[in-house]
């Protein structure tokens, strides 16, 4: 049953991801007073790219070839392990927060490595920036999640979600602050303005994408949309598991799917509004903001020690 659930999650995430990125593009267009294309534009983009020819830099090695597939594979593995419909993880082995953080780091590492591999200065610079974001945001994620794990007594997302859902947390304020810090860190990870522009492959940040074409680019675009859904689901699984099924039967299963869809839709709508109401930050100042988020997780840890 849990294997079926894991496969179902992968299918849902893969199918829904372009729809969500299409919807955020539509919201952006509306907020910019443009007409914009409909929500299915990303499906058409991916389908179009799949039929195009693949062109590669002749200086690139196997890393550049492997990266799109590896990136997609990591997202598939993540989609298996993160609880979405149920509170417990479908594959408990992959439901550990440390595993998730390392899998995200793996995809980021290869993304940056492929950028350097193409020998294009432009792409390489973009890859390095991607790494900087990772270095700045990962400590916050780890600290906030450790605070939540200490409160719940487990690093398994299922157990952490269950503790929050049943209210069995010993330090509610510490958990709340950890949730705030983690939500902000996830927002940075989503690659949205003011920190980044996930869909702007012409921009320096997503420079590596400029070196890809055809099916590879399609796979990368799909994977990046999947990553956004996965990161949001990750946050929801730990800090907002309400509505997810505790025990699995047909009724709770349906309720779980509906609740997950609603939560993800609301989360992305909020992100889209935030994204279009702020200016893009200068790269030099990125650290100031991420360190402030780190401060929030430190405060959460302090409250955890005090016991409130």
């Amino acid at each position, binding site marked *: 049953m849990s294997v079926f659930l894991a496969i179902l999650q992968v299918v849902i995430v893969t199918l829904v991801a372009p729809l969500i990125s299409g919807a955020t593009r539509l919201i952006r267009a509306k907020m910019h007073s443009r007409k914009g294309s409909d929500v299915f534009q990303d499906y058409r983009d991916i389908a179009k790219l799949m039929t195009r020819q693949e062109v590669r830099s002749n200086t690139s090695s196997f890393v550049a070839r492997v990266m799109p597939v590896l990136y997609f594979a990591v997202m598939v593995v993540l989609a298996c392990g993160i609880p979405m419909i149920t509170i417990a993880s479908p594959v408990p082995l992959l439901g550990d927060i440390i595993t998730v953080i390392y899998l995200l780091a793996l995809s980021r590492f290869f993304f940056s490595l492929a950028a350097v591999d193409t020998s294009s200065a432009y792409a390489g610079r973009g890859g390095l920036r991607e790494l900087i974001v990772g270095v700045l945001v990962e400590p916050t994620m780890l600290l906030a999640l450790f605070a939540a794990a200490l409160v719940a007594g487990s690093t398994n997302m299922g157990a952490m979600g269950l503790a929050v859902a049943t209210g069995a947390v010993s330090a509610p*304020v510490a958990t709340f602050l950890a949730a705030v810090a983690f939500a902000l860190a996830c927002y940075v990870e989503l690659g949205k303005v003011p920190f980044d522009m996930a869909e702007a492959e012409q921009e320096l940040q997503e420079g590596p994408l400029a070196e890809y074409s055809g099916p590879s680019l399609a796979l990368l675009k799909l994977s990046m949309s999947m990553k956004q859904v996965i990161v949001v689901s990750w946050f929801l699984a730990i800090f907002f598991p309400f509505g997810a099924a505790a025990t699995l039967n047909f009724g709770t299963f349906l309720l779980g799917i509906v609740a997950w869809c609603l939560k993800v839709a609301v989360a992305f709508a909020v992100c889209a509004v935030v994204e279009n109401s702020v200016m893009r930050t200068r790269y030099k100042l990125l650290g100031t903001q991420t360190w*402030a988020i780190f*401060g929030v997780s430190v405060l959460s840890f*302090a*409250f955890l020690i005090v*016991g*409130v």
Partner: protein
Amino acid sequence: MGYTLVNILGALLIVTSTLVLLSKTTRRAVLCYAVQSAVLVALLFTLGVTTGARELIIWAVTATVTKVIFVPLVVWNVYKKMGCPDESNLASRLKPAWSIILVAAEVLVCFVAVGGIQLPTAAAVRPALAISLAHFFVGLTCIISSRNIMKQMFGYCLMENGSHVTLALLAPQAPELIEVGITTDAIFAVLVMSFVVLRIWRGMHTLDARDLTNLKG
């Protein structure tokens, strides 16, 4: 249950005071301070109901009038009288991240410091006592780190809120007179400081504490 709620509200006091510390404009500081005072009132009320101390409930009512309504109103009026001056160049001396980490450190140090104190209310509110003590230092941090004299005023108010909670926890049965002494003291302090700020603005046209080093008697 009541004591758990007191501890949670105490922690929210620190969260709101951190927001005051981080606020870049007087407008936001006034709002955050009003929210913080509302949390303080809730804390006093909860503590009063839990311990059965009638005095604390009266304190909650007086604090609503003085701290949630009066003090923010006075400061906001002064700010408006000055014509809502631009504060964009009056950033704090500390970066936001360091401010928050400093607050966390203060909470931890105070938690260690109150470890040996025997409370007359209950051992269950020891976290709240640590937090109230830390709150005093958060206020001090606000005064030291701000260049904006309006925010330095709020630093004083934060210190005062901290001592208010400490008193409520250590002496819940203290007569009303003591509490009146504390809150009216704060009101007069805020009134006098607002007046001084207004005079400084009219004379020097600045809110920057660094520009005030040449003041002479």
